[in-house]
């Protein structure tokens, strides 16, 4: 396994441990994610991948360990403060603000960038309206960048699933975050569109300079975009490194296909072919 040592870590997770009742969901996990890379977190069902994301965005409180973002300790911050540091995310179940328009979804994501309170919000002029106009313009720019501008005035909940998925991404990107957490971006995406999704992810990373941490089950996508992969199994790191090496690791195959799987494969002498 070739370990690519990142030049400068944007996110550092150190000995992270999460327990649910008596169950250890994450066990002393260490991760370093470098600025500007696409990092994939994979593993079989129940391996604890979403739990890691929830710890980073503050929806779950870990039992032990620490998480540093640009050298700043995250765990002591409440969830709502972390967004303003430049961490955006998408959700597996989308979790859009479904009764709002797409544009308002993006404006809401920019909540921390705005300051207007109740009093100025009540007035038809002044700070609130100025801020909103500016934010609206920036939101439109993000939508245009992602080719979604025609959806701006539509109600998010009424859009087709595929479009909602992209809106979820737009909402995560509108703040120009340093780090975006993507929870299974390929889930529910038809197989023929996975390649296109890969192209998009690369584009955001290059064009916006965003670091991406993604959880994914679709290995085609992982192989196509990830700079590095970490495999989780039962809450612990099973393997880490470049996708090609890691995904043909016998231990990883066992985690996915069950015990004895790698043996069977090796006996047949099948080698891994790049798709």
């Amino acid at each position: 396994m070739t370990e690519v040592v990142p030049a400068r870590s944007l996110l550092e997770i150190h000995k992270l441990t999460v327990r649910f009742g008596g169950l250890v969901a994450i066990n002393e996990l260490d991760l370093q994610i470098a600025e500007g890379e696409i990092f994939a977190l994979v593993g079989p069902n129940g391996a604890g991948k979403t739990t890691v994301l929830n710890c980073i965005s503050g929806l779950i409180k870990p039992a032990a360990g620490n998480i540093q973002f640009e050298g700043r300790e995250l765990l002591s911050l409440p969830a709502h403060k972390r967004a303003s540091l430049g961490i955006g995310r998408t959700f597996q179940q989308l979790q859009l603000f479904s009764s709002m328009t797409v544009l308002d979804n993006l404006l809401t994501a920019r909540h921390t960038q705005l300051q207007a309170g109740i009093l100025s919000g009540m007035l038809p002029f002044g700070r609130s309206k100025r801020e909103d106009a500016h934010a609206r313009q920036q939101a439109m720019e993000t939508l245009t960048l992602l080719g979604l501008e025609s959806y701006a005035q539509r109600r998010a909940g009424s859009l087709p699933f595929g479009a909602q998925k992209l809106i979820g991404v737009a909402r995560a990107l509108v703040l120009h975050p340093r780090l975006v957490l993507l929870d299974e971006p390929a889930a529910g995406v038809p197989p023929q569109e996975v390649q296109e999704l890969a192209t998009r992810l690369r584009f955001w990373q290059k064009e916006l300079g965003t670091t991406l941490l993604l959880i994914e089950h679709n290995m085609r996508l992982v192989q196509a975009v990830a700079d590095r992969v970490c495999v989780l199994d039962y809450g612990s790191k099973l393997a880490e490194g470049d996708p090609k090496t890691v995904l043909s690791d016998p231990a990883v195959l066992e985690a996915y296909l069950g015990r004895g799987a790698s043996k069977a494969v090796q006996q047949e002498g099948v080698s891994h072919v790049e798709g």
Partner: protein
Amino acid sequence: MLKVEQLHVGYGSLEVLHGISFDVPEGAIVAILGSNGAGKTTLMRALSGLIPIKSGKIDFAGKAVGRLVAEKRLREGLALVPEGRDLFGSLTVRENLLMGAYTRRSRTEIEQDIERILERFPRLKTRLQAHAASLSGGEGQMLAIGRALMSHPRLLLLDEPSHGLAPIIVETVFEVIEQLNREEGLTIVLVEQNAHQALEVAHTAYILQSGSIVLNGEATTLTANSAVQELYMGG
């Protein structure tokens, strides 16, 4: 025994299964494999009647059951062991088993069946009066299977029996599955991510990817098939 044709299932505007067809002969173990998000649980929920199907046919023992509600399908002999087990946590182990026998009347027969199930799963015997919520993962899976058996099903649907279990317990669960099939002639449909283990007990297998069946065949030929691995690992 179970014949599924062109099954389409979805939630709202999202279609999850795009026309699934497969056959389960009487007395067989059929495995349906796929990674997370392939639509395995949706398939099981649709087969058991927990969610409605959009179109397609489900024939069970010569009868069209695709439009029946879950309660009726159980009475036809189609029992599901749901993903995550769905035990009645505040009920005792014994009460969970009694719930499994809800459709049956004879008290003596039910008691006999409970005895038989406790013989098959001796771990449960010691925990009979414990609340199901306090069981370990392995015990819970045994109880979930035992509870489903209490209705005398003709076909057992198992949704990810290995989910969340330690490897050593996964092996025990699969042994039980094999025994049920061998000793009692129970037809079993098994949905799994753990492909290797499932292929070891199954007779035939189907591979589900993104809501479609992309590969099927005899379990023995699929075991060593690099295609399985490719599908999982992206090849």
